[in-house]
């Protein structure tokens, strides 16, 4: 276990994904969940080099296909990520894919970036059509800020709290930050590549 812990050069600091240069987030309630925030976005001021890993479950939700397509068509440059909770948009057939593309298009328009610079992600109940009227109004309501909590809350499902971390490391005498936000509580046995 020492292999993984020797030579530690980084330190954990208080912060989240918006404490990293270039990033803002938003979170709103659009009615996918009864009361809590259920739609959010991450925005980067510049096209960011991006990479993703995705479930290897052979049944994959529509947003994964759309996000993989964005990464492929943009040569790995993303500028916005749209996330909803409450509805997984999985096993929703052709219309689910249409909905995922529309979510990407709406987010692209909202943030004035090309469609292929947008990733979309969904989590929640499998097999229910995405209520797009709610999603459309939710995207309209998103307001970007340096406050990370609304986004961290908007992605939750059965989680009991938000999950955020921020670390700092010096590279070429420049302070570099790496931060993350996550959700996950049930149906957890990831196998991503």
């Amino acid at each position: 276990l020492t292999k993984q812990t020797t030579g530690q050069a980084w330190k954990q600091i208080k912060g989240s994904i918006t404490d990293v240069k270039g990033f803002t987030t938003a979170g709103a309630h659009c009615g996918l969940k009864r009361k809590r925030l259920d739609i959010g976005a991450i925005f980067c001021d510049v096209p960011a080099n991006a990479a993703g890993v995705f479930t290897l479950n052979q049944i994959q939700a529509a947003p994964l296909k759309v996000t993989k397509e964005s990464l492929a068509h943009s040569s790995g440059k993303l500028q916005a990520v749209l996330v909803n909770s409450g509805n997984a948009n999985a096993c929703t057939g052709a219309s689910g894919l249409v909905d995922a593309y529309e979510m990407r298009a709406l987010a692209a328009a909202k943030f004035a970036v090309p469609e292929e610079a947008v990733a979309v992600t969904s989590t929640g109940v499998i097999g229910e059509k995405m209520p797009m009227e709610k999603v459309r109004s939710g995207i309209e309501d998103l307001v970007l800020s340096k406050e990370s909590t609304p986004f961290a809350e908007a992605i939750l499902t059965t989680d009991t709290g938000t999950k955020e971390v921020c670390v700092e490391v010096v590279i070429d005498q420049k302070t570099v930050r790496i931060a993350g936000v996550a959700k996950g509580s049930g149906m957890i046995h990831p196998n991503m590549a």
Partner: protein
Amino acid sequence: TMLGFITTDANVEPAALKRALAKATDETFNRITVDGDTSTNDMVLVLASGLADNQPLDETHPEWANFYGALSACAESLAKKIAKDGEGATKLIEVQVTGAVSDEEAGKVAKAIVGSDLVKTAVYGKDGNWGRIICAIGYSGCTLDPDTIDIAIGPYETLVQSEPVVVDDTAISKYMEAETIVIKADLHQGQGVGKAWGCDLTYDYVRINAGYRT
């Protein structure tokens, strides 16, 4: 479903970023389990703005290990938060495996242990039931000698060279009242090391999931 979003202001070459995320994922997010169900929606994205203005990073950069270490630490922290917040969970379980033939096999053994429903319920019951642990090691599909396995629950060795040692069950139960339970297994087969994380299995897991849609 787990979702992870990682942002950095580092200037990182796209291909190197992709390799780094894949490696970090294998060592962290892919090493957690709550209920053994792999979601249709799991995804982790990393976005690098490049605004920190460092020289472009890839594996040949002299400080690449520092960047990767920070990325991996970030991923591990998020993975542990997910495992700890498993539905109905009251405890985080960390399994540390040493002495496997490779790091990959160590990780597989660790995930087999932490994914065992019987280990998870034993942890909930504060029962240092090492029999369930060695059983999980046995079906992990990894290289091992059934006669050379050591197991410890927290600071308490329960099995040495696959032979039970006299243990104070009361002391182990007391240790297992903690929020984080560490289980260690040494296979004595090689230099491979690896960790995995999970949580205990409680009555609340059933309650939550029986009513997820209703």
